[in-house]
């Protein structure tokens, strides 16, 4: 059984449809990239998967005993107030909150893991700084470290490299790749960087006027034929 299965899914807000007829299944260990134009509904799709947004019709099934508390999430935008007092460490460790159930405090192991994730993201030097005084790219890394704390099986990333410089972007991709291959965490990532998507992902979901879901190889083939058709028409 696959980790996530979507059948005839249609997405939108307040009954207004944005994308429809999405059919896909994500297996454990997959690396799925979601591509599409601005406003095509990629974020909406991710929020629907996460249960933050009600779906209009169709169904989403979680398999393999996947629980919400085993999912990590990096939002595209976090509306944090300008004056919110919170240190980097406090935010990163709050990623464990969902998996603690009713336990009130973080364990030693969780604190150590948070520290490891902070080091992974290269932000240990700003660990005690105030989140709201960091740059956009630094904030992005903090939120990714938090997502790493939350996940055991599946991580959803909404444009993780937006706002990162080219070094950090390459680093981010290799971190995500390693999560996928070494820690065997399933990755679902939204990206505008098609070349990176094609080189790292195993599957591609294209949301737009025409939706595509399939393996990377099929996607490349499909693209080649469509661009050939375009070339022939010209």
């Amino acid at each position, binding site marked *: 059984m696959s980790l996530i299965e979507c059948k005839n899914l249609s997405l939108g807000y307040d009954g207004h449809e944005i994308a429809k007829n999405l059919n896909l299944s994500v297996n454990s260990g997959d690396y799925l990239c979601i591509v599409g134009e601005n406003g095509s509904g990629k974020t909406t799709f991710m929020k629907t998967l996460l249960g*933050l947004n009600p779906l209009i019709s169709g169904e989403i099934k979680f398999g393999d005993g996947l629980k919400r508390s085993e999912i990590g*999430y990096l939002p595209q935008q976090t509306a944090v107030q300008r004056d919110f007092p919170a240190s980097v460490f406090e935010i990163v460790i709050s990623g464990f*909150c969902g998996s603690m159930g009713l336990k009130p405090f973080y364990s030693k192991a969780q604190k150590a893991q948070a520290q490891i994730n902070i080091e992974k993201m290269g932000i240990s030097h700003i660990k005690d700084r105030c989140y709201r005084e960091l740059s956009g790219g630094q904030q992005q890394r903090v939120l990714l470290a938090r997502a790493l704390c939350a996940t055991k099986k599946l991580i959803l990333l909404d444009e993780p490299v937006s706002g990162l410089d080219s070094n950090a972007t390459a680093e981010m991709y290799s971190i995500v790749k390693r999560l996928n291959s070494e820690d065997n965490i399933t990755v679902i990532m939204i990206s505008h960087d098609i070349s990176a998507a094609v080189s790292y992902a195993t599957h591609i979901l294209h949301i737009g006027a025409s939706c595509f879901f399939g393996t990377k190889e099929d996607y490349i083939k499909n693209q080649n034929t469509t661009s050939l058709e375009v070339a022939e028409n010209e």
Partner: protein
Amino acid sequence: MSESLNQLYTYLQFPFVRYALIVGVLIAFCSSLLGVTLVLKRFSFIGDGLSHVAFGAMAVAGVVGLTNDMPLVLFITTISAILLLRTGTNAKIKGDAAVAMISVGALAVGYLLMNVFSKSSNVSGDVCTTLFGSTSILTLNKTKVWLCVVLSVIVVAVFIIFYNKIFALTFDENFARATGTRVSAYNLMIAVIIASVIVLAMNLVGSLLISALVIFPALSSMRVFKTFKSVTVCSAIVSVFCALSGILISIIISTPVGSTIVLVDILVFFGFWLVGNFKVRSAK
């Protein structure tokens, strides 16, 4: 100096002074713990809003002809607080606007009802009661003090046990929900706690003071401290200090208790504001 200390010592012999100190400090402590979350969630004015709801409820009770309006008032205010707070960040109408709507609406309806079905001629007196507390903090009896102690213990225990959840929820509710935290349940729990503290405090010390106790310590500490934990700890200390010194000062120079506490809070806020500015300057 020793003269006023002597005088203070004499006053402390009176049980009502001790009661006032205990209740004042406890309410200040609880509301400052909750204040950080309330201010960050844009619910700073919830104390004021709820007092107007209480006023409206009193009007309704008066019209219906209830002799003991307390249970109805408590019930309606608690329900409104829960309705306001329960929805969390994803509400269509957010914090301040929702509080303003409920507060103005309840005030208008209450005043209208009182005018149309006027039984008590002392409308402005009733309004005053809701603003400054129906029982003065200096006329508390033992039962009320115990009620306050029990509630405070519960509030502090819940706050400590759920501290990490409260942080996660206040910082990023959507992330918490997406990663399996039972956000609605926690929001409801926090709402119930806040509602009971505010409703109790409103009765004991009045809504004016409770608003100040929610807002000032949190804002003061946020001038200087930058982590959630330090802000919470600091605002609890600030709040207790201000309540304690406010009550003592008001006893010694016989000024109104609530206003004196608020005044001390304002002074402390200025102090923190200066320190905060100084910190920013010297960091540059």
